[in-house]
């Protein structure tokens, strides 16, 4: 959470309203076209498109978005506690399930990172690598 700007609290309420508006739009679009992705993910795409086309200014949603995203991990905690309810489902075949989660996640991460890094390097290897601003 190292991107804390000063938040203007008077902008929070309209900002949150806009986020919900895009959630509703996202849900509507996915229902209408029977898309396989969830309404909130669609809302995220629509919001960034609307910002990109200058349909709404960044300042309208920036503060509300920051305050929600700062605590995004917290909102996943109840879902995590839900693992308790799935004890029974997980009990059968737990060995391959654990293997798929542990090995699968690591392999997927390393593979994705490896390929993306390779693709990045093929082009800009000779240029100065300006993107390494790892905080």
């Amino acid at each position: 959470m190292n991107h804390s700007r000063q938040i203007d609290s008077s902008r929070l309420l309209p900002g949150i309203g806009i986020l919900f508006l895009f959630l509703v739009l996202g849900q509507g679009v996915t229902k209408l076209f029977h898309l396989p992705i969830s309404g909130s993910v669609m809302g995220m795409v629509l919001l960034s498109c609307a910002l990109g086309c200058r349909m709404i200014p960044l300042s309208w949603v920036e503060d509300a978005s920051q305050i929600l995203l700062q605590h995004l991990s917290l909102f996943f905690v109840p879902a995590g506690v839900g693992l308790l309810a799935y004890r029974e489902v997980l009990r059968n075949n737990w060995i391959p399930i654990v293997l798929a989660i542990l090995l699968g996640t690591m392999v997927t991460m390393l593979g994705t990172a490896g390929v993306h890094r390779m693709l990045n390097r093929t082009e800009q290897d000779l240029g100065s690598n300006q993107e390494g601003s790892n905080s």
Partner: protein
Amino acid sequence: MDNLLFLTSTIFMYVLAQTFQSLLMKKLGKVAFLFHPVLVSVIGLILVLVFTHTSYEVYAEGTEGLTFLLAPSVVALGVPLYKEWKKLAAKIGKILITVSFGSLVGILSSILPPLLWGCPPEVIFSLAPRSVTTPIAMNIAQGTGGVPSLTAAVVVATGIFGAVMGPLVLSLLGRIESSVLGIAIGVASHGIGTARALELGEREGAYSALGLCLNGVLTSILVPILYTGANFHWN
């Protein structure tokens, strides 16, 4: 009354876990990544529920307020995504190749362990969409003869594992750009991973959000294709 109790204890447990981690960070350095507040507070709250003989349903009802905020927060990811807009547009081809590869690896690495173990198809297809967000994954599982509740459990476990281990696992690759780190975490561990990526930086968060989104689309195309192919083979 009970309702407010669980919401309150979840928030305090999380704040406590955050403080605990930052204390550890000073003492242990990077190893403290393992004690991410999500992991610590989930374990803490599960212990509380077990010891107080509380069912998850009661807890879930009480914490609905927090879960409710997930959907608008995912929409809010559109903001960091927009801020990286120009850079992303310039390399969208590379990003698509990367996520396609990551999506395939994600599916195959979820299918292989249960397949080699001799698990029935419903278990295999419950695990296949493991790397994407819960609603998308459950949808895929439903359409391919999987068990949605098993999928939900495996998706959450994947997210927590990816969020906790991601930065450490990826440090195996040496010095790594924010974009590479973000996209890998997003593809492999969806929303929970993206929340973690945001803690590393806004650019990491943006790439992770894009990875989550594209992988959601690709996985929901690839797994049903695989299912049709497998059915054809089995019959």
